């Protein structure tokens, strides 16, 4: 398992986390290269179906991140998103899907260091959990 390098997809908002991740880069901070960032206008746009698609397409772990509450570009999208994450997490857990594979976070445009820590910590967590082969194997299963 030690040579397993996880595939992580990060769904982030344009205004805070994406800018934060950018800051990480301009500050020349190093973090795990295992993450693929997908930028959204707002965390409110990050539908749970996108997360499922990421897993189906081979992701081992997912990061979802946006602006801190009350420090937000569109005033309330992240509050809405938070509600959906709560319920979606509850559903994943009930379906026996390990919720440690989905990491939610708030990372502001000023938190370049936090972004680096978040990615590293998530990568480490997923490395320990191993590849999400149970989910990946669903693809193609049930076709005769």
């Amino acid at each position, binding site marked *: 398992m030690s040579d397993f390098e996880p595939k992580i997809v990060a769904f982030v908002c344009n205004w805070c986390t994406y800018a934060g991740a950018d800051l990480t880069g301009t500050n020349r901070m190093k973090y795990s290269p295992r993450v693929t960032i997908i930028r959204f206008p707002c965390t409110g746009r990050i539908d749970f179906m996108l997360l499922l698609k990421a897993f189906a397409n081979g992701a081992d772990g997912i990061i979802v991140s946006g602006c801190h509450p009350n420090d937000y570009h569109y005033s309330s999208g992240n509050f809405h998103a938070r509600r959906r994450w709560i319920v979606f997490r509850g559903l994943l857990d009930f379906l026996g899907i390990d919720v440690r594979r989905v990491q939610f976070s708030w990372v502001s445009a000023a938190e370049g260091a936090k972004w680096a820590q978040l990615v590293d910590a998530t990568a480490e967590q997923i490395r320990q959990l191993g590849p999400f082969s149970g989910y990946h194997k669903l*693809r*193609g299963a*049930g*076709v*005769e």
Partner: protein
Amino acid sequence: METEKKLIGRGELEKLFSHWRSKGKRILAPKKIGAKIDFAAVTTLEEVCLDQVQTVQSAKTAVFPRVEELFSFKNKDGRVEIRERDQGALPETVIFGLRPCDDAAFAVLKAIFNWDSQDPLFSARMEKVAVIGVSCPRADEYCFCTSAGGGPGGTTGSDILLTEIAPGEYLAEIISEKGRVLAGEAAGLKPCPASVSKEAHLAKVEPVFALERVAPALARLFDDNAFWVEQSLRCLGCGACAYVCPACACFDIQDEGGGSGQRLRCWDSCGFGLFTLHTSGHNPRPVQSQRWRQRLMHKFSYMPERQQVLGCVGCGRCSRACPVDMNILEHLRSVAEAKP
């Protein structure tokens, strides 16, 4: 081929199961799954349930699976490669313990898939399937095989039909060449005395409507919107009836897997609004009453005329599975009895 009659005991059947298993054959038979009884892969006779009147689903999955690959493809760097299925790899299957109505349904499926041209995948699967039916000692209020041209001891579509004439003792009617081959694999088949008859061991299923009146009545009723609205008010527009039906074979074709994927064939149902919806938004059957009408017309009017076969075997599954009790038997009766 002339039907041959033999006697076979449960012990012999058990041996046959292990023989098939040793040959690597898949055995599909009614099995208890949760609170329901349905066809599933089994390995021993022990697992098989024969007490039920009917299983929830039919055995059509053996020849027309919910989802099957037509072919796979690779679309890369401007080149496309198509890989056709290896039909030799399709599983040799024995379907055991299905009722005579289900056996008869294979003839309906053949008519649908092969009426104008052969469907190669269906035909290849069909080729590898042997059918051992068990006639019906009991029926319920949803059964109407005798109104749909069949019967509780009907042999159409079976390779071998078993009738339990005493506990653990079966009369085996060997109907087809495939049946003869199967029977040849069984040691200890006993000759059947002429005095043995299955009739006494069959359920009584009284005919409930006159089939010959249905098609002409349907043709007459086609434009009677009020009639169809009334018939279908309860209908929720789901596909449960079509999916449990042994003779429904409408399908969809879907691509999956992006540039390197599969073209799949999967079940579809005329009950869905999407079934006929044009891309423009126009729908030739925009409301549920028209979709329900299509279901009856297709099975009882169009198929008899175009494919020379009734699209229904009277198993009653659709009525049992319907969440809102759309009982097809009642509907057919009211069609047959509708005044000209």
